[in-house]
């Protein structure tokens, strides 16, 4: 049993370490320049945002349009802590996530009683309220934003946080808690008649998702020198939502792929901004027509298990 578990996990471990080494080495050798690295950081942040929103929207079925709001809470908390109080980066990451989680709890408790469209509207409203709050709060620079001179975010931190997000959310989903979340998505009344505490799990998924959105916010704040309220508007929430829908509501690997694809597309077409938006929209329309469930649907990418022991009695050919 234990052996089997190791054999199934090993390919993922190799992939994770492999990607890390390849990027670290190529960037150290100068093959990947700073421009490439900042895009890779953007991809990592997008993955964290996409996977954490997928937990709320895709797996638990609670349609939230306020993910950028939680990201903003993390970003501003992070900026304040490092700039005004000189916190070390790991502590900042944790506090940014916790701050977003607390806000998630406060917002989640009342709004998660709503369903479908109503929840979407309520969370959208929440995102806007936050944005307006930050615009009018001179302590953090108001509409002009807040400058963050400490550029703590680097590839290693982003990579570690991305992997951590995926592992935590995947493990949550594989547990009984995850089954409860999926049951709520499928049918809330049936779920509660199975004895599932639906409010608890909806709020829990919301808090966990918000936490990682906050972590993504801290990473964002320390990667781009400046946080402005405008960066966390409604459009940012939609952008994250697109990652989730494009990748597949209910697929972690789908969100990862979509986050990579969308970032790459927008990077490649940066010189032609108008063409970029057209292609972006076109890609979405095509995916929705041909794969309405998203690229991956509710499936996950499976890697073949590596066999550690020599296969016994393996015979070549038949007599």
């Amino acid at each position: 049993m234990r052996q089997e578990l190791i054999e199934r996990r090993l390919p993922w471990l190799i992939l994770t370490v492999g990607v890390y080494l390849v990027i670290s080495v190529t960037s150290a050798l100068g093959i990947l320049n700073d421009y490439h690295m900042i895009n890779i950081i953007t991809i990592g942040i997008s993955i964290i945002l996409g996977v954490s929103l997928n937990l709320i929207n895709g797996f638990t079925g609670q349609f939230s349009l306020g993910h950028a709001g939680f990201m903003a809470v993390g970003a501003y908390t992070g900026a304040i802590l490092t700039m005004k109080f000189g916190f070390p980066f790991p502590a900042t990451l944790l506090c940014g996530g916790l701050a977003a989680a607390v806000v998630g709890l406060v917002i989640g408790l009342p709004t998660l009683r709503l369903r479908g469209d109503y929840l979407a509207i309520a969370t959208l409203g929440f995102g806007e309220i936050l944005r307006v709050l930050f615009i009018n709060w001179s302590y953090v620079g108001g509409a002009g934003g807040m400058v963050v001179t400490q550029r703590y975010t680097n590839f290693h931190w982003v990579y570690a946080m991305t992997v951590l997000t995926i592992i935590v959310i995947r493990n949550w989903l594989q547990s009984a808690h995850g089954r409860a979340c999926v049951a709520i998505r499928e049918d809330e009344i049936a779920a509660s008649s199975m004895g599932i505490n639906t409010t608890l799990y909806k709020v829990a998924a919301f808090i966990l998702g918000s936490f990682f959105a906050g972590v993504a916010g801290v990473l964002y704040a320390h990667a781009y020198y400046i946080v402005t309220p405008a960066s966390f508007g409604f459009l940012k929430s939609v952008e994250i939502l697109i990652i989730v829908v494009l990748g597949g509501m209910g697929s972690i690997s789908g969100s990862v792929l979509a986050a990579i694809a969308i970032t790459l597309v927008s990077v490649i077409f940066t010189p032609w901004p108008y063409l970029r938006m057209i292609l972006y929209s076109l890609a979405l329309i095509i995916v929705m027509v041909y794969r309405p469930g998203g690229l991956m649907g509710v499936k996950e990418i499976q890697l073949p298990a590596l066999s550690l022991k020599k296969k016994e009695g393996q015979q070549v050919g038949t007599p």
Partner: protein
Amino acid sequence: MLSVQGINVFYGKGIHALKDLSLEVGQGEIVTLIGANGAGKSSTLNTISGLVRPRSGSVVFRDMDITKLPAHKIVEAGLCQVPEGRRIFANLTVQTNLELGAYLRKDKAAIARDMQRVYELFPRLAERKQQPAGTLSGGEQQMLAIGRALMSQPQLLMLDEPSMGLAPLLVKEIFRIVQEINRAGTTILLVEQNARMALSIAHRGYVLETGRVVMTDSASVLAEVDEVRKAYLGG
């Protein structure tokens, strides 16, 4: 085992759905609630299982007041409802649906045993273990809904319109299985429009009309009462 005392349920401001409704279910019984559309049958079940809150009155289950408990706590107490319209998890497999039924239980061996029992009770489900539940026929979905409820090891099983939308032969099959479940020791509270069928397997019955109990007696007596025959049994 279950005692409902004078519950009043309102929907919004105007609609008084249940009026001073009381009923009793004893250990080992099959009790049925019959009545026309809108008589309050489903409202009664939903109130007992905590999906609807009564404005007054009480629900006591095995000496425990469950009137104000949230729905999931009531399941924990041993009272499980098969909701109207089945409400299976359509995108999940038959097996996963059953596993979710045992959500509150930790005893893996006993869960496996009960799963086996459900498959014996409904061999058709066993053939379709890995199929998404939404691809099952209506009758099979009803079987799955009942099987899923059994997985929570209920002391009292409440069934809301199990015959809804099913072919007559399947209705017979479902009712036979309900009887079988009852003989194995589970108390049953059954809501049915198909009064003839319900009275044929039940021990006792309550006749509901516009939110009130208008008559109660043993099932065999109710089946002979003129008003019941005229109103619900077609002569």
